[in-house]
């Protein structure tokens, strides 16, 4: 708004008021004012107050003698017109010359005096800064310089944006990191140093920071020479009052750390010997690619045949060299994109995608051929072979692990069918395998609920025909499948780690039953019960289990006999002997079951703490064919070692008579007495004892 405009709307001031204002201004120590007038084309100071004279260091009269161009030197060359405008007030920041000749930065406001006063202007002069402001500015400047120095010399690569993504500053460390000059990085140039694939992330985080807060982004920076550095860029919001939002970015070069972590991850997921992915990575690989119902995924499971022979005969170093060679051959035989993993030991798995069953089998055949090429290790020529199981994903596969499990099964089938074979797990085989898995689950449940029952088959003494002992026989009545024979569920328990629980159940239940018979039958109760023990139970824990079961039911150890098969004993005769000795010391009898069917060393037999040999039913059966040789020999052997004998599978009176004649101590057979439930056995023993007191005899057989 111009001075003229202002004057029009205001009431005319009285001469007294004008005089009062003039006096106030002339003696004011707050406002520095002077009046410039133009006379004959020349500008001069027409009037000044005390304050302006003091501010500029002039005496009251001296200021009038100073040319205006000299007072305002930056407006030389006729530029006074820019300040002294006819129709408007002008504010300018100018240097004003003091009496000393020094220049004082001032804000000068020139107000034109309205006509008829002629060409006159009132100038208000104010120094631009007082001492406090100067001190504050100096402090701020010093602070900014310190920060700049800190940033410049910091070894941490640093970016500074004052507005948006445009950099105002990068330090030397950042220039060194990307191998580029600062000029090329300023503005948005630094974004060119970000790897194109990571640019989006960096921009996203930086933009979020511009709106406030802190963020970080992991990004690769591409150096001028094309090499890459992996970094973490940490952004912090910066707001400059009066300017806008920017950020400070500090960069951590994590290339070496990532490389180290990658090495660790590689070590965690790869087999150190062959460098192949290990079982963990295999599982992840298959899981990532497995889509239920999609198909097209195939697994080939290889197990080297006779690898143990190589290891045992040529040593582990040669064994390792063979594994490395096999790994190499597998890698060079599979298709690009197929995964070769070392599953463990001498087992390898190949995973293929987009392949038919025929394609998978063809690949398995190529692998077999590649493996079979001869190689010489430690001077020995080897022709490696593998048993190979192949599975192609079907709609029945609901999880990735099923695929690996199925090809494992297929491999075992191949191994079982004869080494060096390829087996494809067809739907029937898969169904069988799954059926077996279900059965294992049912068995686990049945054992937990004590749903397995025991039958007790009496064993007769040939001396007086009395039933002196029973053999506990486990029976499983499946709720849906009916009776499952022991020949099915015992091996199943052994394979699936359930044999210990099964053995404990049989042991405990037998002891419980004996104790119950004792209570009900008194002296007519069976003198002893025989319990079968699996080879897998024959360990240091067996003694404790037996002792605990006897104690639980208050029975002496002599009431129990442990039956163990000949083949189980021969798996590890030394440790078997130690376990049996413990049982013998406890007072438990030990019988060797199915004697004569294995390949016992007679020398071992002499040293084993055994009380009784059970003659296998196959030899007993031969009696009817006129071949008593083996039975005779076994009974004679037992007798010579001071051992009792039990002849199993006695089916006829003739057999019984013959066995008694040969010297067998005890007889056991279905026709002598079928296995009975605990309750039926109680009745049977009570009745038999009542019928023939003093000589308990089987009702159908007359033993002599």
């Amino acid at each position: 708004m111009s001075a003229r405009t202002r004057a029009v709307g205001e009431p005319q001031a009285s001469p007294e008021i004008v005089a009062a204002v003039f006096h106030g201004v002339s003696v004011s120590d707050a406002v520095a004012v002077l009046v410039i007038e133009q006379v004959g084309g020349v500008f001069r100071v027409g009037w000044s107050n005390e304050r302006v004279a003091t501010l500029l260091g002039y005496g009251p009269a001296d200021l009038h003698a100073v040319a205006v161009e000299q007072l305002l030197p930056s407006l030389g060359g006729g530029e006074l017109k820019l300040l002294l405008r006819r129709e408007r007030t002008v504010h300018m920041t100018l240097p004003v010359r003091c009496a000393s000749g020094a220049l004082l930065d001032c804000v000068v406001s020139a107000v034109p005096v309205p006509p008829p006063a002629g060409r006159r202007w009132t100038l208000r002069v104010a120094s631009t800064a007082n001492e406090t402001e100067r001190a504050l500015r100096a402090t701020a400047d010093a602070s900014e310089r310190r920060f700049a120095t800190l940033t410049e010399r910091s070894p941490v690569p640093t970016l500074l944006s004052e507005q948006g993504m445009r950099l105002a500053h990068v330090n030397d460390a950042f220039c060194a990191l990307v191998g580029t000059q600062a000029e090329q990085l300023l503005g948005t140039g630094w974004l060119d140093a970000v790897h194109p694939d990571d640019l989006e992330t960096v921009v996203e985080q930086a933009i979020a920071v511009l709106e406030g807060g802190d963020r970080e982004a992991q990004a690769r920076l591409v150096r001028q020479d094309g090499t890459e550095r992996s970094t973490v860029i940490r952004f912090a919001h910066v707001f400059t009052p009066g300017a806008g939002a920017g950020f400070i970015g500090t960069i951590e070069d994590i290339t070496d750390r990532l490389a180290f972590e990658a090495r660790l991850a590689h070590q965690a997921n790869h087999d150190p010997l062959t460098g192949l992915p290990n079982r963990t990575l295999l599982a992840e690989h298959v899981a990532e690619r497995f889509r239920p119902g999609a198909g097209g995924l195939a697994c080939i499971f290889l197990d080297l045949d006779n690898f143990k022979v190589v290891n045992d005969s040529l040593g582990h170093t040669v064994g390792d060299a063979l594994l490395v060679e096999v790994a190499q051959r597998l890698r060079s035989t599979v298709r690009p994109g197929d995964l070769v993993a070392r599953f463990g030991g001498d087992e390898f798995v190949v995973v293929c995608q987009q392949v038919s069953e025929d394609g998978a089998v063809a690949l398995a055949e190529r692998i077999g051929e590649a493996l079979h090429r001869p190689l010489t290790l430690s001077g020995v020529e080897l022709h490696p072979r593998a048993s190979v199981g192949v599975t192609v994903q079907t709609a029945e596969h609901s999880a990735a692990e099923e695929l690996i499990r199925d090809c494992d099964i297929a491999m075992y089938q191949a191994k079982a069918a004869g080494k060096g074979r390829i087996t494809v797990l067809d739907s029937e085989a898969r169904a069988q395998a799954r059926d077996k898995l279900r059965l294992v689950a049912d068995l686990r449940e049945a054992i937990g609920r004590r749903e397995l029952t025991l039958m007790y088959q009496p064993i007769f003494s040939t001396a007086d025909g009395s039933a002196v002992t029973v053999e506990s026989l486990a029976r499983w009545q499946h709720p849906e499948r009916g009776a499952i024979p022991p020949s099915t569920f015992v091996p199943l328990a052994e394979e699936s780690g359930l044999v210990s629980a099964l053995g404990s159940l049989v042991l405990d239940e037998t002891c419980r039953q004996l104790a119950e018979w004792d209570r009900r039958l008194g002296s007519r109760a069976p003198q002893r019960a025989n319990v079968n023990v699996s080879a897998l139970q024959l360990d240091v824990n067996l003694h404790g289990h037996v002792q605990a079961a006897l104690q639980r039911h208050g029975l002496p150890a002599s009431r129990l006999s442990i039956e163990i098969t000949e083949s189980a004993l021969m798996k590890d005769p030394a440790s078997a002997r130690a376990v049996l000795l413990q049982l013998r010391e406890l007072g438990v009898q030990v019988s060797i079951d199915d004697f004569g069917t294995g390949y016992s060393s007679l020398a071992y037999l002499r040293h084993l703490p055994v009380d009784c040999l059970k003659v296998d039913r196959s030899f007993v059966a031969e009696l009817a064919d006129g071949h008593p040789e083996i039975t005779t020999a076994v009974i004679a052997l037992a007798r010579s070692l001071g051992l009792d004998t039990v002849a199993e599978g006695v089916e006829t009176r003739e057999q019984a008579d013959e066995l008694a004649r040969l010297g067998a101590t005890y007889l056991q057979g279905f026709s002598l007495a079928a296995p009975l439930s605990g309750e039926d056995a109680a009745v049977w023993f009570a009745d038999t004892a009542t019928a023939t007191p003093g000589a308990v005899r089987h009702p159908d057989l007359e033993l002599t």
Partner: protein
Amino acid sequence: MTPSAAPSLTVAPVFDLERVLGSIDRMAAQRPVAAQVVAETNSDRASAKELSRLLGADVALAGRVMKLANSAFYGMRGRVTSLQFAVTVVGFGTVRTMATVALTDLDDESLLPEDFWEVSTTLALAASTLAPRFAERPQDALCLGLLAQMGVALLHHNDPDGYAELWSTHRSAVARRTAEVHRYGISALRLTSVALEQWGFPAGMLVPLKQVDDDASFSGALLRSAFEVTGRLTDGDHEETPIERVSCGQLRERDVAPVLAQVRTDAEELRAALLG
């Protein structure tokens, strides 16, 4: 200021300077929102919220700010969706510059000398790129460079034919300024500083404009160097002045080459973003 280097107003003007200066006030009245934005951004209390509120009343200006914020020049890749964020991205100084451009009709190229914006954007980017060498903020230098030639536009508005002839006849910055003073009694740069001062721009921004012709003035060195770089980039007949001299020793010739390449690339981008 070195009197011998400074063009003088003493030469008889053929032009009513008072009228030109008066037009600066009228411009503000014609674009009140832009004038308000200029006033607000000159305040220490300026906030993005208040600025965006003001800008919202001038759809054309707000649109230009949004467009600039999302331009490749700021590297934001089209992610600026609010006016307030746009203001923080481009900075208050740039918003003020754009408002000033709108005030003075600088966005209408038909009212400007040929290649006006090519020179202005090149000057702005040269100043912005060189700013760190002179311990100046690039963003401030960018704004100064964009507005430095506002006086050219004012003179051209008032004397289209005469100024167009002057513009094409005198290619170097110094020669133009001398010719401007000769014809109008004031150089375009000086006129810029007067207008900006009148609109309340901070004194620090005006000093380089006032001292650009004083080769001994460090305050004018950045703008002087930017003019030299601009001449080299935009004028095929440019007679080079050693960069050491115009920069008060802050730059050497080998520093200039990378700047030339970068400025050349960015100038067109900035011009497109500013003018659409």
